[in-house]
């Protein structure tokens, strides 16, 4: 579903990613694991088309992210770490805006909003201005906008960052429930979160891919992480 071939990304003279090669299968949950500054967010931004690779290529659902950016972006739902939302909009207006922007027709937008608001429990705040929402609800809105056009691929950047324990558990359950129907790529620097959410884990350090392991076959992820990093 996702193919990353020899991808390098430079910011000026700084090498953020070096020769990354990785495949993600359909319906799989892959977690990028690494300390801050290891290149996780850069790799996710390359997948979404927000950044362009300096070298190499990324193919998303059969579309090259540089040569066919529009087609590739239509396949993706993205939840950035910063939870960027338009505070002046109501939740339903924001979801309609994002849905329409991603190609939903006026007729299907209302149905799609109802579907995602049920899925992430947003019904009670649909008419509330986003600026009035708590961090937990803002997280749900960010996830809902990523789901509203039923994408084949979901990308989460640090999805549980800043959430309380209950919200973390709910987000993990949500990601697991999406597996199979969607291909999920997420980033995290929390080992326990990766163990409970992902099928496979890719360990990054200073822009290099140190290894990819199946979580079920790795009983001691902590020991593996320490040995690799």
């Amino acid at each position, binding site marked *: 579903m996702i193919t990353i071939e020899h991808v390098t990304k430079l910011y000026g003279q700084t090498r953020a990613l070096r020769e990354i090669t990785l495949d993600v299968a359909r319906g799989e949950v892959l977690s990028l694991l690494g300390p801050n500054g290891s290149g996780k967010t850069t790799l996710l*931004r390359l997948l*979404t*088309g*927000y*950044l*362009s690779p300096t070298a190499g290529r990324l193919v998303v659902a059969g579309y090259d992210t540089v040569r066919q*950016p*529009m*087609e590739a*972006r*239509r396949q*993706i739902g*993205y939840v*950035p770490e*910063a*939870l*960027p*939302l*338009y*505070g*002046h909009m109501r939740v339903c207006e924001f979801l309609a*805006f*994002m849905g*329409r*922007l*991603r*190609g939903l027709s*006026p007729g299907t937008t209302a149905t799609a909003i109802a579907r995602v608001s049920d899925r992430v429990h947003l019904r009670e705040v649909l008419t509330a201005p986003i600026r009035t929402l708590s961090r937990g609800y803002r997280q749900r809105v960010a996830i809902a*906008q990523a789901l509203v056009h039923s994408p084949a691929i979901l990308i989460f950047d640090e999805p549980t960052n800043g959430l309380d324990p209950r919200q973390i558990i709910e987000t993990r359950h949500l990601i697991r429930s999406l597996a199979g129907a969607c291909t999920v790529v997420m980033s995290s620097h929390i080992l326990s979160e990766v163990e409970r959410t992902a099928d496979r884990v890719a360990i990054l350090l200073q822009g290099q891919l140190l290894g990819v392991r199946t979580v079920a076959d790795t009983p001691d992820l902590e020991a593996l992480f320490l040995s690799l990093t």
Partner: protein
Amino acid sequence: MSALGVLLRKELHATCTSPIAYVVGTVFLLVTGYTFSLTLFLAKVANLTYIFHQMYVLLVLLVPVLTMRAFAEERRADTLELLLTAPVREVWIVLAKFVAALALIVGLLVLSGTYAVVLGLYGEPDWAPIYGGYLGLVLLACLLIALGMLTSSLTENQVVAATTALGISLMLWFADAAAYLLPTPYDFIVLNLSLIGHFTTFVRGSLFLSDAGYYVTLSGLALFLTTRVLTAR
């Protein structure tokens, strides 16, 4: 509706709900209304030349305030990442913001059209300078908006964006004065960059393609550069 239409609707909604738009509109109409009344009752002159020159100054001062949020705010709030990862072309994002800002300015100019109506009812004004003046103001607004959007795309600090746009506009305004200090052929080139030089011909009721071309070309260039800033990442 295409993605461009969706973006345009969002930008128009953001413009209409922004307090900055109302402040800019109020200042613009109050100041021009005050000057119009003074000109009409004291000078008893049935033309809008003074008003057009005052609108010119007000647009140079106020448009950077209007456009400073365009991309700086999106960048600060990280919502630009959301837009640029959606299946929309960067040029559509730029055009939607441009058209929304231009719609506000054109709305203000339409409201100021009541001055021309008053002149028409109570006097016999020469309509060519009035039509020309409004056309010049629309073209001027296009250029100022495009410049403001360009500076806004380069920073996430709105004050920096507004100040830089104002600085560029003022430099273009006074380009004709600077041209006198330069040797040939640089004086000719700089003279032709003058913002006011290309505007006054419209207010006189003359329409030269070179004047319209100046505004259209520079506006297009600024919008092109804004799009390039968004795509270079």
